[in-house]
């Protein structure tokens, strides 16, 4: 977008002129006078795109005006509107735009500056299996040291490396949320990661989480629910988080079985029994994690009739010696004891259960429509789920095209993730940030850090979980942090990095052309009283309208 160079100047100029502040007021602030002394930043083209500036330039404006309704629609489909998304939306029209969002191409690099940051991460060029094996070795070596002090030092070094690995996936994730043109996929990636929650700080999940997000969740985020479920089941992050790596014949651990039924598929109270949980736990025996590299791994000694049953796929291992080969009765079906194929059979039953269609539809509607979606909407989505064998994009389409969706626009309270990402998207548009650290910090302060929910239920999705008094006060502090300056977002991660000049500019052309009309009188009045661009930004990002999507 255009209004980028010389941001403070332009922000000040536009804000002040549009808000109709008198020049005398401007003179009271040294900062403002100074800004007005540097009009050189405002090129004619830039001035043209600013509606308040008069100019004879005839080039068509790059930023389109959207109706309030289109704006709110786009705001919900994306992590938050910005001029780039508005432009794309205007060029494609709603139907085509939605189709592209629902069926994104597989591998699209992000804008160059963002992609370069991702490419520089260790997780981008080292396979999970390699660094897990390396770290495993480091941990063993550390634990084998006899001197307690030296051992503690080595264990600390191991923990430091773990922490380093643990930070990388969140960097990639946030950059995608900010800059991917396929915003719906990124929102769904967050949604499913939360649905199939694992916690960063359990065991060595910091080494597994990036691969889990990138290879188990994201490729299936808009695909088939059955594939998504199976991908999480085969991932070491999930098997470890819910202790299925401890689940073996004679030593049953029901943890994962229970959560699959209660949280991942059918939901509590949908008619299954404790017996079903126990039988599923038996079915899941033997599905675990093997961290050794394939070349150094030994296949366990198997009885002759189970030769060939052993499966090793990356870190996933199915060990027949740990599996319960008895027959099971699960959800009223007899499942013949025969190894890994039992799990596929159980997943088919779970993914096709009507309760699952309903539960997943309801949860999607809570995320995208309202805290209390109507039974009619959920029924419609669940019917689509069943008819399409769990095609997530189809279920979403049914939801997005429902009248209830349109009626809900602009009314959903943003969770911290939506709040922060939408603010940074709007404030900087396609000017790529150089450091996601401040965003991770804000997410932590607002208690919704990525991969940071300890318990398998994931973060709550409803408004009441995020709008408490302390939470609102924190939100306003974050509004101020984002609105008052570049906040560290443009200072790279290395110790030598220099802070690059940048200034948040939510008051961009999109604001003047479209966003402003969605604000209420109280908000406009408060914004009129802003005494600086920083102040204006803070108030705007703290406004009740900006809390909702």
């Amino acid at each position: 977008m255009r209004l980028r160079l010389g941001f403070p100047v332009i922000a000040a100029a536009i804000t002040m002129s549009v808000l109709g502040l008198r020049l005398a007021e401007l003179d009271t602030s040294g900062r403002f006078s100074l800004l007005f002394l540097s009009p050189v930043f405002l090129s004619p083209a830039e001035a043209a795109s600013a509606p308040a500036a008069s100019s004879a330039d005839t080039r068509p404006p790059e930023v389109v005006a959207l109706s309030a309704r289109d704006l709110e629609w786009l705001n919900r489909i994306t992590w938050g509107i910005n001029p780039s998304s508005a432009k794309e939306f205007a060029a494609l029209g709603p139907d085509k735009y939605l189709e592209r969002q629902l069926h994104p191409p597989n591998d699209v690099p992000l804008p160059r500056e963002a992609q370069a940051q991702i490419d520089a991460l260790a997780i981008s060029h080292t396979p999970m299996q390699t660094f897990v094996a390396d770290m495993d070795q480091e941990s063993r070596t550390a634990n084998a040291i006899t001197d307690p002090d030296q051992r503690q030092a080595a264990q600390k070094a191991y923990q430091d490396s773990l922490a380093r690995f643990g930070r990388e996936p969140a960097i990639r994730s946030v950059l995608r949320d900010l800059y991917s043109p396929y915003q719906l996929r990124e929102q769904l990636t967050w949604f499913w990661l939360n649905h199939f929650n694992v916690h960063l700080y359990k065991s060595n999940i910091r080494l597994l989480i990036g691969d889990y997000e990138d290879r188990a969740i994201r490729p299936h985020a808009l695909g088939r629910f059955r594939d998504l479920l199976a991908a999480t089941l085969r991932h070491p992050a999930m098997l470890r988080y819910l202790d299925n790596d401890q689940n073996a014949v004679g030593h049953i651990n029901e943890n994962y079985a229970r959560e699959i039924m209660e949280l991942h598929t059918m939901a509590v109270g949908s008619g299954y029994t404790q017996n079903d949980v126990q039988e599923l736990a038996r079915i899941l025996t033997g599905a675990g994690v093997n961290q050794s590299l394939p070349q150094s791994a030994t296949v366990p000694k198997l009885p002759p009739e189970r030769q060939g049953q052993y499966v090793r796929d990356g870190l996933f291992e199915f060990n027949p010696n740990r599996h319960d080969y008895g027959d099971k009765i699960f959800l009223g079906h007899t499942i013949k004891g025969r190894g890994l194929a039992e799990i596929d059979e159980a997943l088919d039953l779970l993914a096709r259960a009507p309760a699952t269609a309903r539960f997943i539809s309801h949860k999607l509607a809570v995320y995208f429509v309202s805290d209390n979606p109507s039974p009619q909407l959920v029924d419609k989505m669940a019917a689509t789920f069943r008819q399409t064998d769990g095609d997530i994009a189809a279920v979403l389409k049914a939801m997005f095209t429902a009248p209830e969706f349109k009626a809900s626009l602009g009314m959903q309270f943003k969770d911290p993730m939506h709040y922060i990402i939408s603010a940074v998207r709007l404030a900087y548009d396609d000017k790529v940030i150089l450091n996601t650290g401040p965003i991770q910090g804000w997410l932590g302060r607002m208690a919704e850090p990525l991969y940071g929910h300890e318990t398998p239920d994931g973060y709550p999705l409803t408004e009441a979980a995020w709008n408490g008094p302390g939470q609102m006060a924190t939100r306003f502090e974050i509004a101020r942090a984002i609105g008052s300056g570049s906040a560290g977002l443009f200072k790279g991660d290395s110790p030598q990095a220099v802070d690059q000049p940048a200034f948040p500019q939510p008051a961009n052309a999109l604001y003047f052309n479209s966003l402003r009309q969605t604000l209420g009188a109280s908000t406009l009045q408060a914004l009129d009283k802003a005494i600086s661009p920083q102040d204006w930004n803070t108030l705007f990002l703290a406004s009740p309208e900006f809390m909702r999507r």
Partner: protein
Amino acid sequence: MQRREFLRMVSLTAPLMIAGRLYAAPQTRTRFLVVFLRGAYDAANTIVPVASDFYYKSRPTLAIARPNPGDPNAALPLDRDWGLHPALKDTLYPLYKKGQLAFIPFAGTDDLSRSHFETQDTIELGQSLDASRDYRSGFMSRLVAQLTDLEPISFTDQLPLTFRGGTSSIPNISIGFVGKPGVDDRQAKLIESMYQGTELAPQVAEGFSVRDEVYKEVTAEMQEANRNAVSPKGFELAARRIGGLMKSRFNLGFVDVGGWDTHVNEGGATGYLAGRLGELGRGLAGFAEAIGPAWNDSVVVVISEFGRTFRENGDRGTDHGHGSVYWVMGGAVKGGRMVGEQVKVEQASLFQNRDYPVLNEYRAMLGGIFHRIYGLAPDRLQKIFPAVQPKDLALV
């Protein structure tokens, strides 16, 4: 508690008459603070079973010596069987001697997972272990739902599980990192004006008000610190701030303290654990000081997810165990004693031949305290801890 219920309680239950005065009135004065030691503190080296030869046999490098007035590293006598870690000599031992601190040995949960993760959740949720967990219903939020005059607050970075759920919104404050609010008064007023007439107006006003209160408290403390020259750090700083905040406005609080998972090089009378205990002791004594006269209406409960193995391991540390020792303190607490079911500390009494058993289940114990301080009737205690029979240990 409502007056009507109070009167009903009095007529139903005799123990409410304590020392000739009606205990429960007035309700709003009671301050209740839960201090959660996350990571499972080594109870056996903190409240030391000094009468047990088996203890000294089981901990050749870690054991705290039997009480001996001439030895600064010896345990401080609590009663015939127990002694206190010497790191608490100047902070909590005086409170014990004054009768304001009681210890409940063999305390904890029935959770046998020995997982920090699992058992902390168990404690915070306070639900029955045989049912499926409801992560949206912590026991402290259920307590809030039972009383109308509570001003709850969590002194933690995130709202802990125990305060989740319920209908009212409970504020949390990162008590260790209170800075000058960036949003100034003028901005706060403008922000409030934008929310006028919206559903969020009360939360927004309350949020600024809590924020200001916390900052005011911290500023006052800073001025004091300048006079005293030494400014407290870590938990001591946090606990003093909490004392200041619970002096006036807030009367139900939760705070957690980490760093107790001592698998390696735990230390004995000195060393790692001694350092953690010293800080904890300074914090709790600082809380008592900072809250001022309201200390007489305060009840502080110190809990931890489980105890540690009774025997030391090969790394001069201890591993995940079962039974712990919980603490109850406050100006009106009937302390200076060991409270609850006890058993002789010897090999035969260990649970699974490795840990303290749990003889005092924490929900029953807390239920008993809630009954005492809030006058909650059994049917309402059931809403907080379903299917638990409260155990009245006459602690307050």
